[in-house]
């Protein structure tokens, strides 16, 4: 499909937005909007994937729109084709899911118009080839997603979530604006191609890196700019949460890749340092905080932060390798990052869909009121289990492969000659492993509390399985999680063109190896075969089960639980999400969060109930943001006095400003 075809697709999405604004019967609107978005994004996805796999030529297009002397430039290269495929696949899945899920929406007119606009904006960001179009569509992405976050504005807390989100998004866009301004520099041309051509004359690359890390990183959820994400992502309807977590964060990663890997030019030796540090801290903080949350969607949002941290660790490694001239290692690290981008978009969408299914079935988001749902909702439960295993980086699913590739990249890094990197990378490796282990604990908690055990509320007791659209969407994603985990070689080969576009070299072709194995550097060094591991596990499990059932005993008796002899029929005696997290809370308290527990135990004979109170504090918020907020308020208080001056005082202020400026001009020249 020519590039104009993609733009027509974007225009079609925008038309859907307009259509949604027309007054019409609500039910039909849901089908038309989600069905239309599904059709358009499916075409976009198919052609982007074909573009990536067939290795077709890059395409560029200039339209006489926007700023007169600049126009609007678009380009589709390997990188944007990959991200476009990820974005549009997420959009296809979300739209399909929403065909069923969207019917439960109470106020569809607050969601429907912004949904296609959000999709169009994400597509446009990826297609943009100049700073103007990029920033415009970036801002459109922020605003439309903000509107979607605010769609349930009556729910307590959502208004604050929307406010924090819009403030962070604006500051982030501003940082990107500055970054592009610095890159355009003296030439003053905002087309990416011109900026790329003048990369060697640039002097302030460090500032641009910092601005890109802040601008794109705050959108992706990098610590310490992550505070908006766990507020905003859960507030939106679940299919939009899936898009924001699974896809929009990837667009943010794309922004970082485009600026730092593509336009900014050859990296300096220290560029990897801040990226690695921020990534590692983000991964651990996200994993830890996710483990302490009770709201299911908020757990998922924190886990998005963790995964973004993992992606940035791999990106930082890639930058470090590239700056030191190790192309193959840089390609390996970048492949790990992009593989994780793909994986995370798959399983995070799946998990958010699952949380939406739970919300539909029970009306509950709080883990503390779920339980026993695997018996009531077997299919949702199975797909959620797949998602939980995949995101916990366990073989043979896909999350493990990308993390394995990242570990392999770390193992190559002693060749780097810089002492700072030598000191930092082992610590980063340990933090990556810690984040993975914490994620596994977090998802044992999520699945164990929500789907296993006994129901903790009537809503959970009476839940029923959700509609077919949701199930098919989740099932497809689940199968893909397994397939990409079992056949990682195909994904790595597909990522080859864009890795070589950004780094200059790509990983060796994996399809030559037997048995569909992967070997990042050489087979003698390390190799992994997801397919064989998967086959081994299934065969030996089935074999053991078959032998025992055939030759020994297959009799089962259903009985009340034993529980060491004193079972309690009350489901409140089960472990709760808080009690499950208690050991971890106690061990890691002080690392990114502070937990304080107070137990109020009445004296014997006292009739008062015992009380247990748990307080959690996000230290980043308390020590990073609260001071800023209070400073702003203090300044605002001071400036507030300016509102109560006489006209003469106002005039004298203006006069003083004028004189001051003239004086400055006189001294300056």
């Amino acid at each position, binding site marked *: 499909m020519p590039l104009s075809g993609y733009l027509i697709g974007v225009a079609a999405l925008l038309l859907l937005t307009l259509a949604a604004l027309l007054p019409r019967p609500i039910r039909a609107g849901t089908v038309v909007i989600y069905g239309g978005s599904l059709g358009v994004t499916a075409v976009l996805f198919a052609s982007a994937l074909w573009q990536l796999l067939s290795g077709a030529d890059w395409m560029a297009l200039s339209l006489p729109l926007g700023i007169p002397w600049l126009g609007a430039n678009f380009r589709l290269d390997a990188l944007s084709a990959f991200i476009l495929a990820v974005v549009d696949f997420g959009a296809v899945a979300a739209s399909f899911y929403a065909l069923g899920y969207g019917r439960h929406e109470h106020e569809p007119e607050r969601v429907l118009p912004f949904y296609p606009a959000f999709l169009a904006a994400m597509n446009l960001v990826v297609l943009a080839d100049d700073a103007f179009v990029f920033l415009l569509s970036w801002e459109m992405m922020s605003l439309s997603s903000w509107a979607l976050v605010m769609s349930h504005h009556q729910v307590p807390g959502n208004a604050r979530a929307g406010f924090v989100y819009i403030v962070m998004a604006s500051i982030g866009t501003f940082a990107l604006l500055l970054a592009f301004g610095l890159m355009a520099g003296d030439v003053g041309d905002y087309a990416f191609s011109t900026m790329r051509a003048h990369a060697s004359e640039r002097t302030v690359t460090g500032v641009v890196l910092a601005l890109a890390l802040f601008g794109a990183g705050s959108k992706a959820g990098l610590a310490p700019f992550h505070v908006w994400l766990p507020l905003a992502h859960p507030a939106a309807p679940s299919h939009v949460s899936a898009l924001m977590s699974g896809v929009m964060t990837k667009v943010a990663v794309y922004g970082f890749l485009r600026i730092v890997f593509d336009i900014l030019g050859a990296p300096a030796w220290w560029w990897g340092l801040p990226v690695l540090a921020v990534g590692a801290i983000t991964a651990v903080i996200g994993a830890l905080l996710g483990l302490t949350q009770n709201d299911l969607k908020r757990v998922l949002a924190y886990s998005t932060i963790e995964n973004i941290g993992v992606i940035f660790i791999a990106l930082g490694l890639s930058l470090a390798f590239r700056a030191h001239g190790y192309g193959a290692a840089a390609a390996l690290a970048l492949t790990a990052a992009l593989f994780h981008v793909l994986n995370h978009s798959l399983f995070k969408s799946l998990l958010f869909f699952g949380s939406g299914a739970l919300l539909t079935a029970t009306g509950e988001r709080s883990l503390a009121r779920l339980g026993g749902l695997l018996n009531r909702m077997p299919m949702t439960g199975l797909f959620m289990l797949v998602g939980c295993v995949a995101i*916990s980086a366990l*073989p043979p699913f896909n999350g493990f492969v990308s993390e394995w590739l990242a570990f392999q990249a770390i193992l190559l890094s002693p060749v780097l000659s810089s002492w700072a990197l030598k000191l930092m990378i*082992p610590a980063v490796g340990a933090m990556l492993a810690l984040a993975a*282990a914490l994620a596994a604990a977090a998802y044992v908690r999520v699945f164990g509390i929500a789907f296993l055990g*006994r129901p903790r509320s009537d809503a959970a007791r009476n839940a029923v399985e959700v509609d077919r659209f949701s199930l098919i969407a989740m099932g497809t994603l689940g199968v893909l999680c397994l397939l990409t985990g079992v056949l990682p070689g195909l994904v790595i080969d597909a990522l080859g063109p864009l890795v070589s576009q950004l780094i200059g070299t790509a990983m060796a072709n994996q399809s030559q190896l037997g048995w569909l194995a992967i070997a990042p550097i050489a087979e003698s060094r390390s190799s992994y075969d997801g397919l*064989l591991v998967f086959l081994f596990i299934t065969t030996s*499990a089935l074999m053991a089960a078959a032998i025992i059932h055939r030759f020994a005993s297959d009799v089962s*008796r259903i009985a009340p639980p034993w529980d060491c002899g004193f079972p309690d029929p009350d489901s409140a*005696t*089960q472990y709760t999400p808080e009690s499950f997290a208690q050991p971890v809370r106690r061990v890691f308290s002080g690392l990114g969060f502070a937990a304080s527990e107070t137990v109020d135990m009445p004296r014997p004979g006292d009739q008062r109930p015992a009380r247990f109170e748990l307080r959690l504090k996000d230290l980043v918020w308390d020590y990073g943001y609260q001071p800023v907020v209070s400073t702003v308020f203090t300044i605002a208080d001071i400036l507030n006095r300016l509102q109560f001056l006489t006209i003469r005082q106002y005039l004298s202020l203006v006069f003083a400003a004028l004189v001051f400026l003239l004086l400055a001009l006189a001294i300056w020249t």
Partner: protein
Amino acid sequence: MNLFGNLTIQILQMLLVLLPAPLLTGFIRKVKARLLRKKGPPLLQPYRDIIKLVGKEAVVADSASWLFRAVPYLVFAATWVAAALVPTFATGLLFSWSADLIAIIALLGSARFFLALAGMDVGTSFGGLGSSREMMFATLAEPAMIMIVFSLALIAGSTQLSNVAEFMLSPAVGLRVSLALGLIGLVIVAIAENARIPVDNPATHLELTMVHEAMVLEYSGRHLAMIELSAELKLSLYVSLIACVFFPWGLAPVGAGIAPHLFGIAAYIGKLAVAGVALAVFETSIAKMRVFRVPDFIGVALMLGLLATLLRFMSGSL
């Protein structure tokens, strides 16, 4: 050698890790009993237990889901596959390249993941307690293991266990500080992962400090047999892992002929015996820790692994 021979050795290896695993547990119990001047159960008692359990009916709690019945087989399969990938008497097996050391750790992580889920499935307080503590230990033990693997991989230049073992056999290796650190760390992780004293007590039930036994409390019959067998398999996996990396004597590459392989099998049995005696002596001479001392204990393994890796990064010769 031809494919058939390779396959034979691979299957031999799979059986060789599976069959003596209960014997190792029985041997440790026997030595521990003898150290306490007791007679102890017969050596073959674990086999009898498993056969007895397999033949009995399985009692399943009424609140359990299908996952509860599937988990014993999944855990057993993951542990067995992981154990089969650790060289015991021969290196360079037919499928040894299909997963490296990191993947073996992750396979054990999968087994633990499902076991922890099973602990929560029935919805009792004991099960939740076990799962929650097991996952807390794992949050430290797994990074510790990864860091130890890093230091080993940086010394041997590979994460493939066969290659690591061959490197350790070669004269190039020498005495290394990071190796010593890694060994201590690996022993600590092995103790914690196998729920041995001082982290957990394999012999106790009905105690609030238990972890592993609390998770599997609701299992009975064939399911319990599978769980017990996986636990025994995991213990012999860690022993084989330590033996293969730090004491690789007797390992022969595939195709070396019958005699070296027989010698390798004998050496493997000998290593298991030595490890069993060492573990029994250690367990008898030490008291169990409070649960919240355990993170410090495993934390030491993590620190040692990190230190070893740092040393490898700093200087090529350490």
